[in-house]
């Protein structure tokens, strides 16, 4: 009969559990990544069986020749600013909900709902909502702000913020839920102790709540920075990238499937990946310092 020492058995178990995830990782992440890097060094059009190695020509083109290609990254800045406001709002709502006011469950549901809705549905709702004489205008007229209506989607000055607003509305609930979860971990008696010592609501937040949830907020900032570099669905569905709302991902897809420059698109994807990694490294460094202080 087959017998094995406890140690061998342990090794077998460890290897057994590692095989599947490592295989999946290789097939669906590492291999495509290697392929992506390889494509970015060719002039492949995505269809023809031939790929010619062109070295760093694609990268050269993106950085030095065709500046239009990087321009959509600027749009990420709007989404990033939006995501910071979103985080502040989410934290604010979470703190209020954490008070356990009557009906807070209903509010939590309402705020979370957009996140579970399908992107397409959300975007279509917003497209109609932001139309000229659409839902928003009607609402503003109703509450007496009719004079302030704008061409929310058509005005190139405003459209970016309109899209950011839609995106904030969609993802607020998700951040709210995460922040709320973190808040629940703060024992109530710390607040009670602080109340007895005379701390105001703001001081309670500043000295008790904030330090406790800071790591979670940090994580959310990382996620939303990465998210704002990768925005796609909401602007794609509402404006299709018209009116200067094209994001970097949209530009990449356009290069690959519309202009049939898969090599170039692959280079753009690699650049985005580097950006994202850079952001994470920087933020990790900042946080670790904050964390151990």
């Amino acid at each position, binding site marked *: 009969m087959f017998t094995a020492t406890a140690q061998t058995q342990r090794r077998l178990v460890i290897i057994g559990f590692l095989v599947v995830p490592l295989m999946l990782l290789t097939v669906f992440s590492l291999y495509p990544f290697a392929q992506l890097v390889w494509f970015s060094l060719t002039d492949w059009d995505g269809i023809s069986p031939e790929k010619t190695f062109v070295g760093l020509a694609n990268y050269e083109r993106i950085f030095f020749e065709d500046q239009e290609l990087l321009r959509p990254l600027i749009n990420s800045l709007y989404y990033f600013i939006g995501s910071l406001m979103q985080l502040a709002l989410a934290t604010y709502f979470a703190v209020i909900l954490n008070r356990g006011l009557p009906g807070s469950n209903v509010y939590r549901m309402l705020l979370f709902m957009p996140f579970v809705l399908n992107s397409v549905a959300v975007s279509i709702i917003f497209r109609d909502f932001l139309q000229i004489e659409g839902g928003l205008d009607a609402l503003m007229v109703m509450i007496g702000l009719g004079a302030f209506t704008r061409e929310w989607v058509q005005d190139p000055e405003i459209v970016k913020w309109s899209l950011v607003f839609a995106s904030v509305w969609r993802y607020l609930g998700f951040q709210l839920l995460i922040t709320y979860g973190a808040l629940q971990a703060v*024992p109530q*008696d*710390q607040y*009670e*102790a*602080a*109340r*007895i*010592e*005379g*701390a105001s609501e703001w*001081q309670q937040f500043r*000295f*008790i709540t904030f*330090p*406790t949830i800071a790591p979670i907020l940090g994580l959310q900032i990382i996620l939303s920075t990465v998210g704002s570099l990768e925005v796609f669905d909401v602007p794609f569905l509402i404006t299709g990238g018209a009116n200067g709302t094209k994001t970097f991902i949209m530009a990449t897809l356009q290069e690959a499937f519309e202009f049939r420059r898969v090599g170039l698109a692959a280079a753009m994807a690699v650049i985005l990946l580097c950006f994202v990694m850079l952001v994470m490294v920087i933020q990790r460094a900042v946080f670790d310092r904050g964390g151990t202080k």
Partner: protein
Amino acid sequence: MSGGLQIQNVTKSFGALTVLRDISIDLAPGEFLVLLGESGCGKSTLLRLISGLEEDHDGSILIGGKNVTHLDPKDRNIAMVFQSYALYPHMSVFDNIAFGLRIRRMSKAEIKAEVGRVADVLKLGDYLQRKPGQLSGGQRQRVAIGRAMVRDPQLFLFDEPLSNLDAKLRGEMRTEIKRIHHALNATIAYVTHDQVEAMTLADKIVLLNGGEIEQLGTPEELYMQPDTLFAARFIGTPEINTLACTITRDGDGYMAKIGEVTLPVPTHAARGAIADGTKAILAVRPEGLSVGVGEGFVTTDHSVELCEPMGSETYVVLNFNGEPVRLRAAGLVKLAAGSTQSITWDFKGAHLFHPNTGQHL
């Protein structure tokens, strides 16, 4: 300083559930009040009402002579020590203690002096830069007390502050709290379910039972003159011995008939006169009993159920017509389980209670 703490006819309900009923307590400045009772009897609720953390009650509360019934916790000039300590985990010990002073915008130099003074009293000087997570339970407890002491409040509130500590540390902290009480001449309201803490710390004990005051008095009064069977049973270890009996008048005293046995009980065991044939509960503290035959006292024979030598004394349980009878014998005594022993009864401190209402007869 005049004032202390006055609680006047306080009643508190959560929805349909009345948790406290008509509580009135008067505590002089510098006195140590212990709120004692079983878990769930409303001790914490009463303390939270005093602190203002819990609101919406009937009756009124005065602290330091001032009616604080409708004031915020911060305006009541109190400090509270929580069972869980409720320290701020990301702040150092120094910052934890200094928190209230910072909120009150005291100057840096003053804060440093104050925290230093408190740290000296509590022997925390070496730990000021540590985080609560790096401290032992007893040290955390001291930080929590330090945080309360530093503001020099009118009234200290403690909610079961020692129940998270092990037995040895509990004993030490008890002494510590007593010492602080004397050193600061502080007025303290202290919640516990542990009657030993109550007996050792209190100037005044309020025994709560189901949201009502069962008895209010000094530790001696509660121990020697319990008003009810509940109070008699709650205070004292081992628990007081209780035997159902029938009382008859016999010359200068009563006779308590328990099964076949008749025991002579002095009249002062009851506070009023008792009619012949009254059913009662006879209660005798374990120290009223001793093993062996004593001159001039009543003696009965019982079989031994349990004999636990503990070193300085031995805890013995005997069987009296199926009821346990507890006593302590001095020193190490070995009594075989099942053997029959003579017991000597001293009824000087005996009590008679009503078998249904539990009131002292």
